[in-house]
């Protein structure tokens, strides 16, 4: 990369990014629109951050599993050493905070690129109405995310009532991890809903909203929640708990598939919201 060239502007010059932007537009019913370097740059940054956003929860689950395995009390000392456990729970809380911070930094990166892109536009376009979470995320997905967290929390609390202290400890690990994921999700959704629009005409305004809707749907999908007990509880919980969690995941996956099939694609949501004003 030449000196003085920012990574973002260099990215915008790549023909592959422009080509991908064209494919993205066509995939959202905007095949007749020519992709601009600005759109290509914004999409490229989102691709990178989305990849990192997928890796982060995976790393978090691995860290949670490692903490659980490393500090798990052995069978001879079922009650374990509590100071030792306190340290492990603190480490897990720190990992959860690190996850939220890393997600927040990724969002800040996207916002910074968007802000710089917006500053180069001689014209700025915006929606004259307030687009809330109902438009961007949609009621069914929001309700589904809340229900998933509520269900997972209820199951974790149920595991806390077990007699086996190892299972209780694993449930505590699950609860802390759930809190971390929930806070991360809220922070990301807030960023998606509040960061400024970058558009100069109706097409770019539509594209901006499509990106927002896709980001929100991606963030609100509770796939990480479904995977969390693998790191701790599955190893220690009773058979009924594991069966209950599997039923919870299957029902959740079915509901998410149904919601995805029944709700309008992001392109349709964006076009409706933009052209309706």
């Amino acid at each position, binding site marked *: 990369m030449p000196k003085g060239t920012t990574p973002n502007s260099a990215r915008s010059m790549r023909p592959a990014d422009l080509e991908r932007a064209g494919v993205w537009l066509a995939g959202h019913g905007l095949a007749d629109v020519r992709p601009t370097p600005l759109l290509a740059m914004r999409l490229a940054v989102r691709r990178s951050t989305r990849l990192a956003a997928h890796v982060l929860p995976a790393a978090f689950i691995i860290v949670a599993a490692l903490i659980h395995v490393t500090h798990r009390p052995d069978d001879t000392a079922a009650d374990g050493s509590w100071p030792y456990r306190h340290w492990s729970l603190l480490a897990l809380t720190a990992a959860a905070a690190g996850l939220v911070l890393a997600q927040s930094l990724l969002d800040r990166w996207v916002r910074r690129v968007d802000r710089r892109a917006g500053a180069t536009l001689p*014209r700025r376009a915006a929606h004259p109405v307030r687009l809330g979470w109902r438009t961007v995320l949609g009621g069914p997905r929001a309700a589904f995310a809340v229900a998933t967290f509520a269900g997972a929390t209820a199951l974790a609390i149920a595991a806390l009532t077990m007699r086996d202290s190892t299972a209780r400890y694993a449930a505590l690990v699950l609860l802390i991890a759930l809190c971390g994921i929930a806070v991360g999700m809220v922070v990301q959704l807030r960023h998606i809903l509040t960061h400024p629009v970058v558009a100069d005409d109706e097409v770019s305004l539509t594209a901006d909203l499509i990106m927002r809707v896709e980001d929100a749907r991606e963030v609100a999908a509770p796939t990480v929640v479904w995977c969390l007990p693998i790191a701790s509880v599955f190893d220690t919980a009773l058979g009924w708990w594991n069966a209950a969690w599997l039923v919870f995941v299957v029902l959740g996956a079915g509901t998410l598939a149904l919601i995805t099939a029944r709700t309008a694609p992001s392109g349709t949501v964006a076009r409706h919201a933009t052209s309706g004003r």
Partner: protein
Amino acid sequence: MIVIDSASPVPPFEQLRAQLARQIRSHTLAVGTRLPTIRRLAANLGLAANTVGRAYRELEEAGLIETRRAAGSFVAAAGEKGREQARRAAAEYAAVIAGAGIDTDEAIRIVRAALTNGTTTPSSP
């Protein structure tokens, strides 16, 4: 959609005010529609918050929007009140025209010129 052109000779607050007013009067923005907060719209359009605030204030004075402190700004039903004011002003104008003995065509030309120049305030000399 609202578009602000920084190269336009029209001040940004007037561009914003005029576009919102037009969309409210044409019912593109329905009564009760919630407008973005001043800070949010300013960030979206790359304007200062004061600029958006001034446009909102003028729309409020014109009765087109109303601001409820906690809930934000909404399109007011008073868009209709504005029309009623215009009808009353037109009736007064018609009375002045009749009193001065000006014919209808000329009266319409005067109104059209006033609208074109943006001097719609009846109090101007």
